[in-house]
């Protein structure tokens, strides 16, 4: 319910420019995911929105009003701090309802909200403990509960689920979405978890060293990354990216070359790209047991098992490439043959590292290319 506009926002700590000219708009009621490498300025951005950090230059608007000088308390915001910031002298219950008490909300209402939050975050039985007697994950849940009970228009979440186990995280994530559907708050959510980013986010903003790299829907960010940074950043293992060349309908990687489908040849040819970076996600490399037409060959380096699948690392003309698979028995040193899912290939300009785009056929089929 709050629209937020960044206009040339910069932030310096001493001489260090931490946030470099941010310009973007968070729509009212949107769930925005903030992604970026450790130390890139995510927490700082949240803190500026919350009014906890001065804005060095530029303007920040909320619902059209400039708020640079509005104090935090007046912004109607809840926040989950990265390091929780629980009040050490209050019990879990008091921590959670403190903000409500301050707002003079009716007792009955407070206790019903407390009950709901405690249930949602599985904190039952801990209500009377002090934070120091809690485990790491329990503290994080208290912090989350505290933010959630407030039902403010804007919820800032700084890695709110990082210390939770997978089951609880799935549960909490779903509950958060439910809350959003009920109260239609604006969410700004920092996470390093790709699944969270993809499932919670309406849009994803990716920061790199304080600069906005991209802001787009999760599926676009994943499937049509605007540049190499974004492409590499999301996905685990990340996208394979290596130098390649195009010549005469053939894609050349090192000494190997295969024929490209016509739609790619035309697309690349038209743009006169001779040398470029080729991107391909691990799950879009199809491994084969024997050499086929159009297949590349690599040498297995090692295999990592992830449970549901595994990552097969192999050497392709001096580049380390990883493919998703399920065969964990591959021996290092053996040859491996594979083709690339040509509809899921990405081509980046050698100079600008920007995505040159996709032939139309990829566009249309991007979600349906593989049958279930």
């Amino acid at each position, binding site marked *: 319910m709050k629209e937020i506009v960044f206009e040339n926002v910069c932030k310096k700590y001493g001489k260090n420019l931490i946030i470099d000219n941010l310009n973007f708009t968070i729509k009212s009621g949107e769930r925005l995911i903030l992604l970026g490498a450790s130390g890139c300025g995510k927490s700082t951005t949240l803190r500026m929105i919350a009014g906890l950090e001065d804005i060095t230059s530029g303007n920040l608007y909320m619902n059209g009003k400039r708020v640079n000088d509005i104090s935090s*308390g007046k912004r109607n915001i809840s926040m989950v701090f990265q390091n929780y910031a*629980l009040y*050490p002298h209050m019990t879990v219950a008091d921590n959670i309802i*403190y903000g409500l008490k301050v707002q003079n909300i009716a007792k009955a209402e407070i206790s019903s909200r407390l009950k709901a939050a405690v249930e949602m975050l599985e904190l039952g039985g801990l209500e009377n403990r002090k934070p120091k007697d809690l485990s790491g994950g329990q503290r994080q849940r208290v912090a989350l509960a505290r933010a959630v009970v407030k039902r403010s228009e804007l919820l800032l979440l700084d890695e709110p689920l990082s210390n939770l186990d997978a089951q609880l995280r799935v549960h909490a994530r779903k509950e958060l979405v439910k809350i959003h559907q009920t109260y239609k708050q604006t969410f700004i959510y920092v996470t390093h978890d790709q699944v969270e980013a993809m499932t919670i986010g309406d849009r994803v903003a990716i920061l790199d060293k304080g600069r906005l790299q991209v802001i787009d829907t999760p599926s676009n960010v994943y499937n049509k990354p605007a540049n190499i940074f974004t492409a590499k950043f999301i996905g685990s293992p990340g996208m394979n990216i290596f130098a390649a060349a195009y010549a005469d309908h053939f894609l050349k990687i090192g000494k190997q070359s295969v024929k490209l489908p016509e739609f790619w040849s035309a697309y690349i040819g038209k743009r006169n790209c001779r040398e470029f970076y080729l991107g391909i996600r691990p799950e879009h490399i199809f491994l084969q047991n024997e050499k086929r037409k159009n297949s590349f060959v690599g040498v297995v380096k090692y295999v990592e098992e992830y449970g549901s699948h595994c990552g097969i690392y192999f050497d392709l003309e001096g580049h380390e490439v990883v493919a998703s698979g399920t065969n964990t028995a591959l021996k290092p040193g053996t040859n491996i043959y594979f083709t690339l899912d040509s509809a899921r290939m990405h081509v980046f300009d050698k100079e600008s590292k920007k995505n040159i785009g996709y032939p139309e056929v990829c566009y249309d089929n991007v979600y349906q290319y593989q049958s279930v």
Partner: protein
Amino acid sequence: MRIESNLKWHILLILALFISLMPIVFAVSTSFKELSEAYSNVLGIIPDKPTLSNYLRIFQELPLNKITFNTLVVAATVTIFKVITSVMAAYAFVYFDFKGKNLLYFILISTIFIPFTMTMIPNYLIISQIGLRNNIMGVILPQLSDATGIFLIRQAMRSIPMPLIEAARLEAAGNFQIMANIVLPLVKPAVISTGIMFFINSWNEYVWPVLILKDTTNYTLPLALQLFVSSEGGTDFCLAMAVSVVTMIIPLGLYLIFQKYIINTFTSSGVKG
């Protein structure tokens, strides 16, 4: 944490304690002795002929109840006032930015170094002018200008992690609420220990009340003690110790009551980061 062999530490501590507590034991024991026994049975902790006569005498000869009450009023007023104003000022110095803040703070703190003897004469003139001699208000007022509380409490406030304050501010808690609900509970140990210091110092304050108070009914306890300490006639140690014990009892009792509380506040404020 492991408990290692701590015997040597314990022995050392007990020894130190013995040295520091012996005089008190001694005072209590002497207050129950007759003068001749105080001289002849110096080491005896339990008097051969325990007597209450010293206490009877001092209570007969002095309005000790009134005197104790006076002392309590003075010490409590001074303590409460100083603690409140110190907390307020420290809060302003830590959580606000305003013009002249550092200079003002420096000036206030510098006054810690002004010996009281130095301001005693002008203060005496002031108190006389407003007609508060022989009145415990006159004892109280000059004691209120003391910057040590501001100093200590400011130090304590500076060690509260900022995110806690920020979290409260996000909750739209106002200054008063932040102070009452977050800052005060977290600096409680500092506030209490400052308060204790104020109380004890004021309780034992001697030089200034001597100058101000006249009637024994307006006296404070340290003055009452002085009544029994005379150089020319010799000090009657037994009487002096009896008054001393009376002088000690209230601060000691208060401390014992608060001690548990202090330990609790110390151990419950341990989460940072």
